[in-house]
Structures are given as C-alpha cells and as structure tokens.
C-alpha cells in the first residue's frame, strides 16, 4: 500500500486523497482533491456565459440604447444567460424523464472517460475513443441482429463481448505500433477514427444495411434492429430509457479502480506511465503493458458504443456518435484519471449535454457551447497555475510534495 501511494504521488496525473485520520481529514482531502476541478468548471461556465451574452443579437440591440436605458441592457444580458442556463437545468433535472435521460447520456461518458483514463495511467493518449466506440457498436449490433435463436443470457453477453473485442483490436493496433515502432498513438488513433467512419459508411450502405420492407436493399443507411434477446434491459416503462448499461458502467469504474490500484498489472501499468525507462530497468514488460493498456482502453471505449446501441437505440446509423471521443479526454482530465473522479465528471457532462439539448430547442443556443465549456475546463485543469492565479490561491508546490500540501490557502 505504502509503495503504491508513493508511486501515486509521483504519477503526473494521479493524486489520490491522503488519508490521515478521522472524518475531518477525509473531508479536507476531498475538498483539496476537488477544489481545482470545481473552480475549473465554474470558470468555464462563467466564460461561456459571457460568450453567450456577447453573441446574442438581442443584447447588441440593448447595447445601442445603453446611454438612455442602462438598466435595460443589463436586464437583457441577464435574461440571455438566465434563459439559456434555465433551459439547461430544466433539461437536466426538471422531471423524472429529464433525470433518466441525463443518466442515460452519462452512461457512455463513464465508459469513454474510463477508457481515456486507463490510457493516461499507462502514459498513453488515446484520442481514438470515437473510432473504437464505433467499431464496438458495429460489432455488437451485428451480433445483435445477425445471430439468431440464442437465449438472452447467451446472446446479450455475446453481443457485448463482440463489441469489446472489436474496440480492443481497434485500439490494440496503435498500441502495437507504438510498442513496436515508437509511432505516436495520437496521430495513429485519429487516423483510425477516420478509417472507422469510412468503414462504417461502407458497412451501413452495404453488408449491414437494413433491407427494405419488400426484402430488397433498403434506402436508409442504418442497420437492422437488434433482436430483443440482445437488448440491455431497461429499468422502467417507456418513455424512461434508463438501462442496465448504467450499472455496468459503475461496475466498470470499480473494476478499473481495482485493476489500477489493487493488482500487480495495474502497478506495472502506472509505473510504465510514470517512467517507462525506470519501469524497463525494473524488469517490467513495457511493450506488453502498452499493447494491453490500449486494448483495455479500447474495450472500455467500445462499451460506450455498445451500451448506447444495445440499451437505447437498438440499431446503428451514420453519425451515431455525438463526439464522445473528444469529450472523453476532458472527462479523464477532469476526473484526474481516477475512476471515481471520472464517474463524477461523466455525470456532470451527462447532465450538461442532456440539458443542452433542451437549451438548443428552447433558447436557441447551439449545443456546441458545451464543447467550449469542456475545452475551457481542460485548459484550466491542465494549466492549474492559471486557475490559481485567477483565484489568488497559493501556487502549487513542487510536484512530489504537491499532494501533501494542496489545500485552500493553508499549507
């Protein structure tokens, strides 16, 4: 335990809570651990709010009258933000349906965030979650509709495993290339994303295209419907769509935590991530760890697609993924690559995105504002000094001691 903690404190992205004793210590640890992320999210929101105001034509009109009616300008600006964020919160929490939808949206986020986090821990930057998710969804949907006559307790796990295998292979390729040739996984995973899009275009227009009602090839590039035996069961009746995928996602988080912090292989992964040279000298299998970490990451990313197709859509069409790949990077950074942090961040983003859908329809604010929030959040977390400067917090001490001394103004 102590050895692992020491390693943790030197891991670039990993700062676990220090436990001293008693509730107070735990509380203190929790605050210090989450202070920067909370401030980062807050700042991201404030800047986005300003952005919404600045780009609102109604506010421009009010600005023209600022000398005669200053109050009107501020009222308009306030209304602009309040309408947007009001709709956002309505859409995220406002009703049982909204709540269920938010959790449904969070589910792929948890998987995708865990995928990137596992990569980060092993020193790998997997930007290819999007492509892996696509390949996973394609494979599981294929098994879901093409394999017939199986009972649900075989068919469903089979579909899930097929998806995970596809994702693991798709991520394993850049992992292997990295281990074998040193090629940077960032560019390769991005390229594999584009290849996955093209491949899915081809599959959805060809071999996997849903036949028309008369049995001839159909017109729409979507897959046939997944058989009910491969559905992830839902908890409630229509229209609530919360499904077992959410529980699987939470279990995956626990599993990742166990793998990373309670197994030898997890220790090896984190050592390679912290200092591959030292790990090699210590006799660790760097190449194997690199490939395995990418494969695990890919399997998790695939689960994001699998849970969405088997739990919610039950078929697959073009443009199926809503940018989970890039969002997942923000999630892993926000959650500091710790499974618990990733789950919290994924819930936050899930509620945000779910609410933003309503914001788009009710207040006319493009959903892409969420992407801006995400980018800002990553900036502020990555450049922690920036946040500390804005809020006049004490600068972080040296990396190795950081974990012990971080706190709100107290050393």
């Amino acid at each position, binding site marked *: 335990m102590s050895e692992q903690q020491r390693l943790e404190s030197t891991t670039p992205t990993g700062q676990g809570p220090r436990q001293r004793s008693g509730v107070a210590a735990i509380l203190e640890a929790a605050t210090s651990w989450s202070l920067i992320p909370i401030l980062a999210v807050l700042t991201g929101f404030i800047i986005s709010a300003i*952005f919404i105001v600045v*780009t609102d*034509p109604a506010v421009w009109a009010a600005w023209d009258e600022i000398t005669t009616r200053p109050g009107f300008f501020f009222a308009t600006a306030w209304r602009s933000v309040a309408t947007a964020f009001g709709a956002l919160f309505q859409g995220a929490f406002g009703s049982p349906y909204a709540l269920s939808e938010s959790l449904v949206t969070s589910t792929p986020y948890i998987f995708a965030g865990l995928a990137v986090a596992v990569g980060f821990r092993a020193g790998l*930057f997997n*930007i290819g979650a999007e492509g892996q998710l696509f390949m996973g969804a394609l494979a599981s949907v294929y098994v879901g509709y093409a394999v017939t006559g199986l009972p649900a307790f075989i068919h469903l796990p089979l579909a899930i495993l097929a998806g995970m295998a596809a994702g693991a292979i798709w991520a394993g390729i850049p992992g292997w*290339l990295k281990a*074998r*040739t*040193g*090629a*940077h996984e*960032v*560019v*390769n995973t*991005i*390229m*594999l994303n*584009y*290849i996955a899009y*093209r*491949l899915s*275009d*081809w599959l959805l*227009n*060809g071999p996997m295209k849903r036949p028309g009602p008369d049995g001839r090839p159909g017109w729409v590039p979507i897959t046939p419907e997944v058989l009910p035996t491969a559905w992830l069961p839902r908890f409630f009746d229509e229209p609530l769509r919360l499904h077992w995928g959410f529980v699987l996602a939470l279990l995956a988080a626990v599993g990742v935590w166990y793998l990373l912090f309670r197994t030898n292989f997890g220790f090896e992964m984190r050592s390679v991530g912290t200092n591959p040279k030292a790990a090699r000298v210590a006799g660790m299998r760097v190449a194997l760890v690199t490939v395995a970490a990418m494969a695990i990451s890919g399997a998790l990313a695939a689960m994001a697609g699998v849970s969405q197709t088997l739990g919610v859509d039950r078929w697959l069409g073009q443009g199926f993924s809503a*940018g989970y790949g*890039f969002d997942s*990077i*923000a999630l892993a*950074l926000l959650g500091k690559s710790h499974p618990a942090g990733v789950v919290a961040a994924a819930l936050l983003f899930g509620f945000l995105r779910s609410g933003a859908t309503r914001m788009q329809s009710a207040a*006319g*604010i*493009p*959903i*892409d*504002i*969420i*992407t*801006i*929030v*995400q*980018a*800002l959040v*990553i*900036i502020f977390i*990555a*450049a922690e*000094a*920036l946040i500390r400067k804005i809020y006049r917090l004490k600068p972080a001490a040296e990396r190795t001691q950081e974990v012990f001394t971080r706190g709100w103004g107290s050393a």
Partner: protein
Amino acid sequence: MSQLQPVGPVSADLLEEAAPVVEPKRWGPVVASVLVALAIAVLFIRVVPDGVVTTFRMAGGQGAAARVAPWVIPSRPGLVVLALFALAMAVWAYRAPRRANLALGLALLSFVGAFLIWAAAGKSLNLLAMLQSTLVRAVPLTLAALSGVMCERSGVINIAIEGMMLTAAFGAVLGTTLSGGSLWIGLLVAMLTGLLMAWVHGVLSIKYKVDQIVSGTVINILAVGLTSYLSGRFLQDPAFNWLNRAGTFAPVKIPVLNRIPVIGPLLFEGNFFFYLTIALVIGLSILLFRTRFGLRVRAVGEHPRAADTLGVNVYLMRYAAVLLGGVLAGLGGAYFTIGSVGRFDEQMTAGRGFIGLAAMIFGNWTPAGAFGASLLFGFADSLQTRLQILGIPIPSEFLLMAPYIVTIVVISGLVGRATPPAADGQPYEK
C-alpha cells in the same frame, strides 16, 4: 545526421571529416520497395489481359498549344516496366541509405502509376485533371505541414494545426464578408486567427508548461466548439447567413507560360494560394537553413540548454516559431474557405491538419520534404474522385481511407524512421 549544420566556409571541412562514417543500412525502405514490386505483379500484372491498352488524356487548359495527343500505353508491358522500376528503387535504397526515403517515395509513385494503368486498362483517364486536383489538394496539406515544421523545429509539438486551420477558415469568411467582400482582409483575419490560437498554444505549452499534446488537443476541441457554436448561431440563421457568402480568389493565369502544353494549365493557372504555397516552401527553406534566425530556432529545438548558454533566448525563439507556425496554419485554413468553396461548413478541415502533420514527418521536418509528401497525400486524396468515374470494383469508402492509411504507415516508420528535432516536445525550464 546532425540537424545543426554549421553555416559558411567551415562546413566543407567538417563534412569531409564526417565522410568516412559508414551509413547504417536501412532495411525498411528496401523491403517496402520490394513489396511494392511484388504487389504490382500480383495485383495488376496477373489480372490485366494481354493486348489491352490504357489511354491517358491530357485535356484541359486552353488554346491549341495546350492540347496534347493522348498518351496510349500497352497496359501489360507498362506494368512490367513499373515493377522493375520499383525493384531498382529497392536496390538504390540498399546502396544509398541516405536516399532511402526518396527511393521508397519513387517506388510508391510507380505503384500509383501501376494502379492507374490497371484501373484505366481498356479505358481512358484524364491524367491532367487528376494532376491538377493533386496540386490543389496538396496546398492545404503543405501549409499545415509547414506550420508543423516551423513549430517543431523550435521544439514545440503542434498537433493543434487542425484547430488553428478550422478557426482560421471561419475567420477568413467573417473577415471577408464583414469588410464588404475584401478577400485580402479575409486572408489577414485568417492569419491573425491562426496567430491567436498559436498564442494560446504558446502560453499553455511554453509559459505554463502544459503537456504540449494536451495543449494541442484542447485547442482542437476549442476550435470545434467555437466555430460550430458561432456557425450554428449566425451562419445558419437566415438573418445572418449573408456572413457566409465570402467568394473565392479567382485563378491567376500567368500569361505566355500558361500556354505551355501540360505544364501551363498545371502550374500557371492556379489560384493565389498555389503560388503562395510554392513561395513559402522556398522562403521557409531559406529562413530555416540559411539565416541566423533559422539557425537559432533549430538550435533551440535540438539542445535548448546549449542554445541558452550561448545567449539565445529560448522562450523568445519558441514563441516566434510557434506564432509563425500559427500564421502558416491560418493561411492553410483560409484556403478551405476563401481559397476553394467560399463558405464555411462545420468541421470542414476533416483531419487535414493531422495529415499535414504526417506529411511533415515523412518530409523529415524540412519544408521541401513536407511539400513532396503533401503531393503524395494530395494524390492519394484525388484518386478516389477520379477512380469513381472509371467505375473500378473498389467501394469509394475504401478509396477514401487511402490517405489515412498512408498516414499511419508513414507515422509508424514502416517507411524508415525519421529523426525529429532532439528537444521536440520538451518544455524548457531555465
């Protein structure tokens, strides 16, 4: 091979001293070239029947002088010649390791030629139109690659080219329409937009020492968010969509020269961006390898501490290089809108920034190499549109994958490992 070559009369002596060193053989390019020859034999020679001919037309351009008789090649003998050529390149790559990348490039070119002969066997293909579209598609890739060369020579990895280009593409449209239709102001705004994004990258990665990959990724995400938001908010709103009607730079025909057959319509009827790109390739080669500024930039990218000791301001050099890279990416972004289609579409750069990055690596971090690699990628890109017309039995989706697969092959060094600047990606702490 040292990246820090001394400039001036000293270099001759040093080179003589270094000459006896035996270059290690590089097997990657040799094996790859042999594979290319085998592939031509198995994939094409085997399936093309005897006696079939391939016709390459050179239609395009104007005037009687620009018209050339079509080029008729007997398919099978043509393929055999190309296969032998690829084998010769394998031998050359073995004999001259320093030229191995070039040899492999030529071998790949012969594969592409073989592919065309096979695809158009018994039919006719407009080669000139294809070469024209190759050049057109190579322009944004080259500009992206040049941006990468500039940044990475100073030791800052720039995977944010994609985002810089996307925002600049947007800026170019807005600059043009808001200024009442001046494309030059649009161009200026695009350059400034690229500069601004590069400044963010510089501050994050040089000042705050954020991981350069994270910083680049953030800029890419921010670029997608900003442009898609503004596009959704304004460009798609009927009240504001006049903002998206920017128009494009017209082709500039260079008199007399454009009447040369084949070469004329190919090289002397391009639009402004084409000439600009050629000028920048030459200009940056001189800037990086023949000026004091270039030497300092490269020194900072190779060994910042040594450069610092000699009184070079590492931070200043890196900022300068990154900002210049941003301007180049801005020009590349402007190409997407006011250089080609005249309007902005969400995520219109579609990964070109990353392909430019691959071109930079394949081109061994030099402007001329980057241009050559971009031509190759541009060709792969233009293949699919042309080949669809011929109706060959490969689904278009797979042809669309070609540039991405080539990128992976290149990046993974199956082609022979390239040497990045030694301090690439390392933040400098004084």
